Structures are given as C-alpha cells and as structure tokens.
C-alpha cells in the first residue's frame, strides 16, 4: 500500500492522474481536520492512534502499512501547506515516544518494523528559491525523523507540470 497526502481539489488531482492505483490510499482536504493539540495521547493513551476522532486518527497505523508516503503540497513560506502539515502533525503516533540518536541528533525511535519511502512533490509559482530550499531541507529532516528508507523532493512551478515529475500514482 501507498499513502498520498495532497492539498489539491479532487477534480484537479483526478485530472492530473486519471488512473490512480487502487493500492494508493488518498488523504484529501475535503474532510475537515482538527489540529494536533500536543497532548501526546497518540503515545501515552492510545499508542499509535490520535485521540481526536475526526477521521484522521489512524494516520500512524496507515503509515505503518505503507511502503511509500507520497506528498503533493503547495510551498508555504518554505514549509508544507496548512492541510498537509496538519495531517503530518497528526501522524506522529507512527513513531515511538522513546528516543534514539540518529545522524548525531536526538530523534524518535520507530514504533513499527516496516520502513517507508518519503516522496515529496512541491508546487507553487510564487515560491522563492529560498522557500523551495527550506522545504527540501525539511523533507530531508522528515526522512530522518520518520526513519524513512529514502526520501526525495522535487518541485513544479505549475500544478499541471506535476505529472512530468511523477508519471504514475
């Protein structure tokens, strides 16, 4: 299974990728998402699952069953767009609360044995070079924090160019 988190209108996504594989679980902004409240309930109350029951509580488990996390996000000040970032903030149950040292820095241990690949396609004609650069570095840091097998980052000025960067979903 693969997970796709994106911030596009569904019509736009379907226009760009008319034949999305059934093995891709799509996380779309249509359904309202609540913010992470920093309670750590996904670690100490219902390990692996967020305590906020709004349809996004299973992100940790979903990621644990995935071989790849694909993200399509608008660049927002050199970070992810609010919806994509919200889903990631609600996904930390994927990790263990316990720590390890990785790349000479403190990071969370993995909760699950299976590791995923992180693939990010960012877009935005207004994004500056500095903003693209910062997001590419955040993706690399996310790769380390999520203990991903591999990570990749690419950028499209226009949404229509996204399929040139990734032909198939």
């Amino acid at each position, binding site marked *: 299974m693969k997970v796709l988190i994106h911030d596009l209108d569904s019509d736009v996504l379907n226009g760009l990728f008319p034949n999305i594989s059934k093995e891709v679980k799509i996380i779309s902004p249509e359904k309202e998402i609540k913010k992470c*409240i*920093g309670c750590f309930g996904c670690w100490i109350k219902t390990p692996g699952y967020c305590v906020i029951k709004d349809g996004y509580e299973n992100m940790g488990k979903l990621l644990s069953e995935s071989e790849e996390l694909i993200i399509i996000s608008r660049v927002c000040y*050199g970070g992810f*767009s*609010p919806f994509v*970032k919200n889903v*990631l903030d609600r996904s930390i149950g994927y990790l263990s609360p316990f720590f390890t040292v990785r790349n000479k820095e*403190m990071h969370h241990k993995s909760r699950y044995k299976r590791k995923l690949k992180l693939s990010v396609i960012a877009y935005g004609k207004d994004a500056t070079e500095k903003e693209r650069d910062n997001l590419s570095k955040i993706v690399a*840091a*996310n790769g380390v924090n999520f203990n991903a097998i591999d990570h990749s980052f690419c950028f499209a000025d226009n949404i229509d160019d996204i399929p040139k960067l990734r032909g198939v979903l």
Partner: protein
Amino acid sequence: MKICMINGSPKAKDSCSRYLIDEIIKLMDDKTEVLICDGSHKPFKDDMFQQIYNCDKVVFVFPLYVDAVPSHLVYFLESFQEYIRLQPVKNISVYAVSNCGFYEGEQNKYALKIIENFCEDSGLNWQFGIGTGTGPFIAQSQTIPWQSSVKRPIYQALIALKKGLEEGYQPKENIFVMAKMPRYIYIASAHAGWRLSAKKNNLRFRDI
C-alpha cells in the same frame, strides 16, 4: 513601545511557549506595553490582526511540530498576511522563539526560516530567532532559578531577545541553545517520564 507576543502553542497548561512568553515579559522594562495573542485557535479575526498590526514589534513563540511550524500557525501566518496586504505599509519588526522536545536547539532552524520567509512575503522586518532544545525540561523547570547553570544558556538567549526588542540588537545569526545537561541524561529523564505516563494510563512501557 508596544510588543505583541503570539503564542503558537495549543496547550492550555504545561506549555513551554507560554512559560517563555511570561518570562520574556518579566524581562522587559516598564515602558513596554505587551499584548499576548493566541496563534492556535481558529477563527483568527480581523480585530485581533488589527491589534497585532498596531504593535511595533511582534514575537512568535511556538513549539516545533514535525521539523517545522505547527499547522495552525501556518494557517495563522497565511490569514495574517491576507490582512496585512490590505493595510498601509508599516515598519514592524519580527522575532521568533521556537522550542522543541529534542535536545538540540538547532533542530528548530527550518521553523525559524519559515517565519523569516513569511516576513519577506508580507513586507515585515525579520530580525532574528531563537531555537531552544530541551523544551519539556524548560516547561517543568519553573522553580529552578534562571541563573542556575542548567538554565543559564536559555536565559542568555532571552536576554539577547530583550536587547533586540529594547535596543535593536541583532546577532549575525539565529541563536540555538539547550539546557546545560548531558544529552544522555536528558534522554534518560525523558524515558523515565514516558514510563510514568504509561503507568498512569494503565499501560506497560512496551505498549507505548
């Protein structure tokens, strides 16, 4: 001088951000008028943005979420930029304090860049940021004096911020700090805390 402190933490209690805000305010001289705004609970209304816009200086204080700014604060930044776009140009200086649960303060560097980029996109004057590691320790250290060796690096960073706000001091680069303790001790203490939390919730530490 009028300063707005924007609290980016959604936590009602035990928030490192709120503790740091309160301590920064204590450091400021009596002439400074300080306003605290909530940067985490939608909807963000124009009258709040107007109050912020009326200030001379703005300080964002927030927790690090997944290597960056929490999503609710990204939404706040976009909404505030929309508000600013419709206002006359004004010289507002912006500072940021990002805190994380990891040991290394440097892990906040990309979050501080996000605030810097927001300033460039919005026509505000980015000054500098502070990234603090060991956030949970700082939040729980309220009975420990700032002059103690363990908290002094954080205190010195807050003094730099005070100098920035009051005197226009600007370091060459962002400041990254953490409480002065060995990393292995910080990690061992954090693990002890998680074990205790598991027990309180009738879980074994292996379960969490």
